[in-house]
């Protein structure tokens, strides 16, 4: 009766077409208050942590740096600077293992335990700042999208003049199973988030502001609704369905609009920011503090004590595991991010970066591969695809290296949410094949 009722209310709730219902597994960490992660012995801060050009180091080995001091300078418009997460000595500027699966340039800092802020970083009165000054502060602070993709926030805050933004959406969906970082942020630091919401609204000159939250976080919905009473900000409860938090699906659910194929949200007058990004904007503008820490959910069946940790950027994964009581058993897979779109890691010697929303440790039994069988054309991938693609057809073309045919079936529109692979009873690596096809299509375009 209760389940049937829930289903009914869910049906009335806003959402998008397609999608899947994986078990959310958020119960391990959803009730755990954010804890400060102890200072590690060494911080390895990669210069590439965002989409766009990596920053260039502007410090030398042996130099003392303050907390918040710039250690890597932005290179170009779609790029952001990188900052020291604490005060200490630069011990190396060299290639180190990076979460993206290779070794990349990083600045290594040995903390001096004093954690002294750079005296140059001064608070500001946001009311006295122009939109341009706010965007500049956000850029200088290295704020990127905190949902995982890490796209520089200042770029989204300065759309070309012909693209007038009229709807600003904040993403509090957190539809990836296991992750609870945004949930805890909304519960524990709503003022920080809402101050950033107001700043972004002011910068973009937007009338309609919406915070979208998945219905499995009723406490966050209630709190945010209460705090937004009397403000122009509307809080919307969204159906629990993956990938509700994907940008295009969130816009479809909230505004009923489709981002045009190959286009951007700004093409239909919409901007989307993560709720935690809003909090980082507050830090940058109001306190003058750069993005040097974030909340990260350390969770999964292989960890002893799942937690929501406030971590310094550059903390090694091994340190995060120690902070959570160590491992219960050997993990089968180490994932940065969620289980649907996160990145598998080779080991614990990589640092957490600005986009690291979670560290998920799955056991061998959770990730054992099922043998692949032939496609029985059951069409579950078609029903699950939130972009209305034919995943099985695109994957079949991609695997035969027929990239023009894959492109004709709109392979480039795939958002790589992985819903197709998740539901496939034949265990065909559908989204993986589509990714391969997309890469082939792009390679062909570059050659032409």
């Amino acid at each position, binding site marked *: 009766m209760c389940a049937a009722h829930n289903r009914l209310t869910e049906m009335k709730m806003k959402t998008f077409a397609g999608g899947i219902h*994986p078990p959310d597994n958020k119960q391990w960490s959803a009730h755990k208050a954010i804890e400060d992660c102890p200072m590690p012995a060494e911080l390895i801060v990669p210069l590439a942590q965002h989409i766009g050009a990596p920053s260039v180091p502007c410090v030398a080995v042996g130099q003392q740096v303050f907390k918040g001091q710039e250690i890597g300078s932005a290179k170009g418009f779609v790029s952001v600077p990188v900052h020291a997460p604490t005060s200490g000595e630069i011990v190396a500027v060299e290639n180190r293992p990076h979460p993206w699966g290779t070794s990349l340039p990083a600045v290594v800092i040995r903390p001096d335990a004093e954690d002294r802020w750079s005296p140059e970083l001064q608070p500001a009165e946001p009311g006295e700042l122009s939109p341009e000054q706010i965007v500049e502060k956000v850029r200088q602070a290295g704020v990127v999208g905190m949902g995982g993709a890490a796209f520089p926030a200042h770029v989204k805050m300065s759309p070309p003049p012909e693209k007038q933004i009229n709807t600003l959406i904040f993403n509090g969906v957190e539809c990836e*199973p296991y992750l609870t970082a945004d949930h805890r942020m909304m519960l524990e630091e709503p003022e920080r988030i809402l101050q950033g919401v107001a700043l972004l609204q002011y910068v973009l000159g937007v009338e309609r502001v919406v915070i979208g939250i998945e219905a499995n976080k009723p406490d966050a919905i209630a709190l945010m609704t209460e705090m937004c009473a009397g403000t122009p900000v509307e809080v919307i409860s969204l159906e629990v369905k993956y990938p509700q938090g994907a940008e*295009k699906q969130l816009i479809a659910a909230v505004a009923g609009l*489709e*981002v*045009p*194929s*190959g*286009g951007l949200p700004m093409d239909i007058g919409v901007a989307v920011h993560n709720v935690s990004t809003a909090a980082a904007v507050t830090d940058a503008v109001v306190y003058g503090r750069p993005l040097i820490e974030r909340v990260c959910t350390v969770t999964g069946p292989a960890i002893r004590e799942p937690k929501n940790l406030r971590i310094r950027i550059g903390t090694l994964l*091994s340190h995060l*595991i*120690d902070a959570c009581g160590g*491992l219960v058993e*050997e993990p*089968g*897979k*180490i*994932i940065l*991010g969620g*289980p*649907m*779109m*996160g*990145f*598998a*890691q080779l*080991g*614990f010697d990589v640092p957490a970066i600005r986009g690291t929303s979670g560290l*998920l440790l799955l056991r*061998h039994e959770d*990730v054992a*591969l*099922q043998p692949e069988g*032939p*496609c*029985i*054309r*059951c*069409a*579950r991938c*078609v*029903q699950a695809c*939130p*972009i*209305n*693609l*034919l995943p*099985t057809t695109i994957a079949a073309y991609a695997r035969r290296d027929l990239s023009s045919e894959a492109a004709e*079936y*709109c392979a480039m*529109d795939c958002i*790589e949410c*992985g819903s197709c*692979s*998740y539901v*496939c*009873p*034949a265990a065909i690596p559908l*989204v*993986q094949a589509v990714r391969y096809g997309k890469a082939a299509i792009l390679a062909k375009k570059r050659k032409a």
Partner: protein
Amino acid sequence: MNKVSQQLYLSSSPHIHSGETTAKVMRAVLYSLVPACAVAVYFFGLSALLVLLLATFGCMATEAVCQRLMGQPVTIADGSAAITGVLLALNLPPTSPWWLTLLGAVIAIVIGKQVYGGLGSNPFNPALVARVVLLISFPVQMTTWSAPAPLGSGLDLVTTATPLGTWKNAVMLTGQAPVEMQGGMTQYFLGNMPGCIGEVSALALLLGAAYLLYRRILTWHIPAAFVGSVVLFSGLFWLINPAKYPSPIFHLLTGGLVLGAFYMATDMVTTPVSPRGMLLFGAGCGLLTVLIRLFGGYPEGVSFAILLMNASTPLIDRYLRPRTFGVQAGKG
């Protein structure tokens, strides 16, 4: 315990899976056919049971032999050959001789499935391929129908004609529908009528289909479009001349319509993958069924209709693709 000594899985996302497997899907389909099989055995007795067992094991054995001969792994445990077998049996008369049943099993697996490359590659529904080959090759055995003799009634199976056959004969001879038909709509619904093993009880078939809908193995598109178009087109003729053409209800409850619409036309491998494609597929099946029943040489047209639509599945899939998100209709 911070070192990783054992091997780690390293693959691109997603890192979790629903746990659904092809074998689980096939098993669910088999479970859903239990009521229909039970009703068949109740009405037609041991001869129906024999046909069911022979067809099922015949299909599984044929698949195993084929795969062994081709040096492929034997996959009869996935349940797909068993489904073909059960569906074939449900499409045969209850008095089918043993050799006819076995021959059907071999045709279904060899000509209907394995020559195309096995599971997932066959364009036509294997059970229907076998039924149609048998129907054309052995018309006498394939159209010898029996009146049901429910278990415990003490009756023997007596040869008689199906309701559709009775109607077709009358129309061919007199140009009018027969004045009186054996049984009534309630009896047809329950399955108390002559016909193939599995097509007699609409009730049992619908029970199984409800389970498949609940398990989300079946979607409503094909059955709804199939049944809907049969009602529409047969209703049209009935309204024009009710003295000659039977009512839509008669069309729905007799012959293989329910079995066809819910089980044969919903075979995943041989039907379109997009919702719009499924609707067109179902509607095409319905139209062809009515045309063959009313104007064709055979009293029943469900099998032919489905096979003809199977042939058009690749075309439907090609031209009725879902509208890609963010692409405006007509521009895709």
